[in-house]
């Protein structure tokens, strides 16, 4: 029967994730942003919990945990510090692609080194081309450490590159804790390739859900913070939350986050035939909700929101940055439209 409550397993993972986010990520959020990396002991602590590969097959260290549990966890991590998620996870949005490629050892290597994590590139806009098994082109921005390997999801298939990739550090609008890189390919050979369209769909869907879950988490953080602030801050004789102009805005923010989360859960549950469409919906909705919430959370705090003394300005930047990943809202909407046309 229809039931939209989490089960005991997901609930437990959610609670553990929430505690980790509250205790380890939030307090260090600004410090990690400034350094452009996540403290090694925080990464180790997260990986020791077994979180990074818990939804993968057993041979990859998986624990038979559902994808739903993973997105539930990632929402909490996004709530704590979305930028940190990429470093914590190791393979992150590229995990499913590594599974499809059968790169078990690489996955293990990534998890062994707290300073190393995968760069996952999703490009359906033709910036990277494949010619005779070699990659060509330049990808402007990916949240990843410059020393990690690169997995590339293209219309042609999944490609893993370990050598011959030029990676240079860039600064991003948000997600400071992850660090960011520009990645260039110049006749780069692929160390592994998978051209199975179904595997590609699964991998892209995983990347989209990864980003969507983080977006829901940041948007929830910003909404909660703005709601609390608005109930305390007084203007014109009452809490600003009790002025209808702001009350309606805040309720729209809260609703947008909840709607996006439900679509995310729906997609995490999708049968394979529906995965492409539902994962595209999940990312499109999460991006739209978060892009609505981010600037408005700043707005609710007024001038105080524009200052770095409060976290909402960071969340607004993190959201803007996240919403461009895994193809972003644009690509998700296009894919969803293509599904309609089939």
């Amino acid at each position: 029967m229809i039931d939209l409550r989490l089960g005991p397993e997901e609930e437990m993972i959610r609670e553990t994730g929430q505690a980790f986010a509250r205790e380890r990520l939030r307090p260090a959020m600004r410090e990690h942003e400034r350094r452009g990396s996540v403290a090694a002991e925080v990464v180790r602590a997260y990986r020791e919990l077994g979180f990074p590969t818990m939804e993968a097959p057993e041979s990859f260290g998986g624990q038979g945990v559902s994808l739903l549990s993973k997105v539930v966890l990632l929402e909490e991590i996004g709530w704590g510090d979305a930028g940190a998620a990429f470093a914590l996870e190791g393979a992150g949005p590229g995990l499913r692609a590594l599974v499809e490629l059968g790169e078990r050892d690489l996955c293990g290597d990534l998890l062994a080194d707290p300073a190393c994590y995968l760069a996952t590139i999703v490009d359906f806009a033709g910036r990277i081309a494949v010619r005779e098994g070699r990659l060509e082109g330049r990808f402007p921005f990916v949240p990843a450490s410059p020393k990690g390997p690169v997995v590339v999801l293209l219309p042609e298939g999944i490609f893993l590159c370990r050598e011959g990739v030029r990676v240079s550090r860039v600064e991003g609008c948000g997600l400071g804790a992850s660090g960011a890189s520009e990645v260039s390919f110049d006749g780069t050979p692929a160390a592994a390739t998978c051209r199975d369209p179904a595997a590609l769909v699964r991998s892209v869907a995983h990347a989209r859900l990864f980003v969507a879950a983080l977006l829901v988490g940041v948007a929830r953080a910003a909404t909660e913070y703005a709601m609390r602030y608005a109930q305390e801050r007084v203007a014109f004789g009452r809490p600003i939350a009790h002025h209808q102009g702001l009350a309606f805005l805040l309720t729209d923010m809260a609703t947008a986050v909840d709607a996006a989360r439900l679509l995310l859960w729906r997609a995490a549950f999708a049968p394979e035939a529906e995965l492409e469409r539902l994962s595209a919906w999940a990312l499109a909705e999460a991006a739209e909700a978060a892009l609505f919430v981010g600037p408005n959370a700043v707005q609710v705090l007024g001038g105080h929101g524009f200052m770095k003394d409060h976290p909402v300005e960071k969340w607004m930047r993190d959201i803007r940055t996240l919403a461009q990943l895994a193809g972003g809202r644009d690509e998700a909407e296009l894919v969803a439209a293509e599904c309609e046309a089939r």
Partner: protein
Amino acid sequence: MISFDVDEKLAQQLERVRTLGREFLRPLGIEADRKGEAIPADHPFFETAWRLGIGRLGPEEDEEERPRSGERTAARRGVVLGEELAYWDRGAAVALPGPGLGAPPIRRMGTPEQRERFFAPFRDPSRPRWGAFAMTEPGAGSDVAAIRTLARKEGDAWVLDGAKTFISNAIRAEWIVVWATVDPSAGRAGHRAFVVEKGTPGLEDMRAEHKMGLVAYESASFTLRHCRVPAENLLGGERYYESRAGFKGAMESFNATRPMVAAMAVGIARAAYDAAREFAREHFLLSRPLPRHRRVAEKLARMARKIEAARLLCWRAASLADAERPNQVEASMAKAFAPAIAQEAAGLAVEVMAEAGVRQDHYVEKLYRDVKAMDIVEGTGQIQRIVVARRLLGYPASG
């Protein structure tokens, strides 16, 4: 007669602003953002700008404000030039020397003697000067009537106690127009404006806030601790407040500055549009018949349309001001509309550029951070809607 043309004089002024913007404002704004520090007050650019008369008051400005004959054009010139300045860099534009937001209250409320005295440094070509306007307090922003900075008469002076926050250019200001109250229970009727000069004892704890954007100018917080201000620095003199509410003076100056801030938002939106269009051209995003590229074209078209609509709202509000007709509704409409579309335009520009749009070495990334403040300063979008709703709908004044 309806006209969408600029006259020759304004065209020339625009050309000067363009040169200034291209050569200085844009690069200085970017540099400040990278460093995370405002453009220093002793930057040689300010000196050069001042020598060229930028921000400096001359007889010509007075003439534009109160022409002896012919029509007044200052407000329309203001919005057109404001848009152009912000197009190049909003932060660097606010950092330019001049009396800034302090000018309107002095012009409107000041006695002839005060106008002469406080504007004098701004006519002196020897070195650049800044003015500031301090209304906002940590506990009172939108609810202007709730300011708590207290003013008490003590002999031939006023003593101010309180705190102000987010005040643009206050650290380097020659003087700050500080709003205080003689009676917190009296609401707006208790408000008084004082010109607090640099170095006045009790003007303390000046510190620059760390902002998400608009880094090129300083937003400062400070304390007024037993700060003694000579009686002759009460703006308008005591008589002024007997005949009219001081609050009205502040609100009138908003009617002049709101269209200007809205126009600056339009400038930011246009900068985002241009950057996105240039990127799209360079990467052939418009010339290939793919659905992906169709989306890019639609985004650009939407941006262009909203920019034009917002600009016209600014021009209308300014035209009314020049005609010395009430423009409260029109000013607030412009101020509610333009920052929102500018925020949208900056976001669309990021999306046109996809992942490249969130890189700090692309100007649109900075625009996305800068633009948010436009919906907050000079009355938030919510407050503008209240102003409009009061006039159009009889919405109750308590908000």
